């Protein structure tokens, strides 16, 4: 039982990172990004290219992956979504769908479709926490990464001037522009942060399973569940959402077998949509008239 709970917690950390990527883009850039799964996979494949295929030193692998996903975020905004400014949300969603297909094709052409095992930075990946309760080193790293990302995001949006400007642009991009805020750079930063969180989640997941586009892509799509639980715009709402999905998936697989993995998250999504479409933790604004 305790082992299952630890497993659920580790999985929740990954879902939290994926949900964060969904929510950040929705909140900052106003985009429901259906390419999140493909971008998760792309981040992991880029990491694998540097780490396994080219065998680069680990600091270069980390910095190289970070620089590449940030650059991809900037390119995504400038080449696609900047040109769609002012278009209805439907057009943006369709664009993300097209982007997902393009990334899938690119990945397939570049890296093929077979699952890969990534080069590991350390030996001895299993860590015994208690008697009979163990997890992987990557599971622990995923937990730490999720904690760091959420703490950093909280501090960034609450206390930094750039974070405050991102919140301002998210609320009203026209007023932000009239107020001298560089809205395009805010959007680029939104893509960069979201893709970085997505890449970390994709890499952690690939280390705990194998690296396949399909597997990581599916994880990314299921990651909309914690985002939905949080109301799609609440970053803090992602955490309980991720815990719910992590527990549902872990215990679902235990009770009903591997096929429950894909089903659990979507069942939670349906239940949330039916009971409270705005999400369990959707933020309410109090306004004086």
């Amino acid at each position, binding site marked *: 039982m305790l082992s299952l709970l630890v497993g659920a917690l580790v999985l929740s950390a990954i879902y939290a990172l994926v949900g964060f990527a969904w929510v950040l883009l929705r909140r900052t850039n106003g985009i429901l990004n259906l390419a999140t799964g493909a971008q998760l996979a792309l981040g992991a494949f880029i990491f694998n290219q540097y780490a396994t295929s080219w065998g680069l030193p680990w600091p270069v692998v980390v910095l190289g992956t970070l620089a590449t996903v940030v650059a991809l975020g900037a390119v995504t905004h400038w080449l696609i979504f900047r040109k769609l400014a002012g278009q209805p949300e439907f057009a943006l969603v369709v664009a993300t769908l097209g982007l997902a297909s393009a990334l899938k094709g690119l990945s397939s052409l570049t890296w093929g479709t077979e699952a890969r095992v990534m080069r590991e930075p350390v030996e001895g990946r299993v860590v015994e926490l208690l008697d009979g309760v163990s997890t992987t080193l990557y599971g622990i790293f995923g937990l730490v990464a999720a904690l760091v990302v959420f703490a950093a995001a909280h501090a960034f949006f609450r206390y930094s001037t750039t974070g405050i400007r991102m919140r301002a642009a998210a609320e009203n991009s026209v007023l*932000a522009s009239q107020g001298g805020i560089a809205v395009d750079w805010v959007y680029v930063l939104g893509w960069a942060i979201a893709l970085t969180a997505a890449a970390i989640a994709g890499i952690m997941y690939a280390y705990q399973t194998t690296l396949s586009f399909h597997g990581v892509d599916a994880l990314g799509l299921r990651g909309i569940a914690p985002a939905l639980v949080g109301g799609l715009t609440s970053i803090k709402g992602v955490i309980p959402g991720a815990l719910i999905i992590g527990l549902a998936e872990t215990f679902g697989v235990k009770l009903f077998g591997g096929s429950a993995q894909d089903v659990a998250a979507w069942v939670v999504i349906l239940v949330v949509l039916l009971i409270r479409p705005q999400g369990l933790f959707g933020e309410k*604004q*109090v306004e004086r008239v």
Partner: protein
Amino acid sequence: MNEPLLQVRGLTVSYGGGSVAVDQVDLDVHDGEVCLVLGANGAGKTSLLRGIGGFAASERGRVRSGKVLIGGADVTGRPPRTMVGHGVVLVPEENKVFRTLTVGENLRAAPMTGDRGSRRELLDEVVSLFPFIRERMDLPAGQLSGGERQLLGIARALLLKPRLLMVDEASLGLSPIAVRKVFDSLHSLVAAKGMTLLIVEQNVRAARAIADRAHVMVSGTFALSGPAREVLESEQVRRTYLGLEV
């Protein structure tokens, strides 16, 4: 007389399918002058300010023809952020503040220029102009009264060190007391800082105390222009355009 700070020549602004909101408008605003644009709803006043201050990429409006010069530099059709860099700052008609941000965060969101010391100094100066701000720093701006939101919007604009401050319908939706507070503040700004203002307003009584020049806008063009006192006292204006009793 020196070259005007703002020169608008033959400005035409249109939206989406081509409907013209501003048609061949000429306008000069000199340094330290308060220029008032009056007119009924739909006359094109807001579109004039937007044509000068620029449209964001997500908006459908655009400058179809004409020129906008600031200090002699051609800035026609530039986006709002670039116009801020040229010293042209607009306080829009609606949504003047970021409602989910606190009052303090609204001020911090303004990209102020200069070193840390001068930014601090300017912030203190602006806060001293609008004392309510200090007491409400941690309150979400959406919870401010309409008049306070208006003043916060103006305060944020002042942090951008505008050469030309454009205020769209400062009195819209405000109580008479709030309107007086807002215009008293604008009056103080003009008196203390020699601020150049271009204001769009329907509340003639409120605007009359501070305006130097006035233009009456009808169907996208200026129907009448001149010194504010003459324009606002004109029987024709009072009866035809402003619906006031003569």
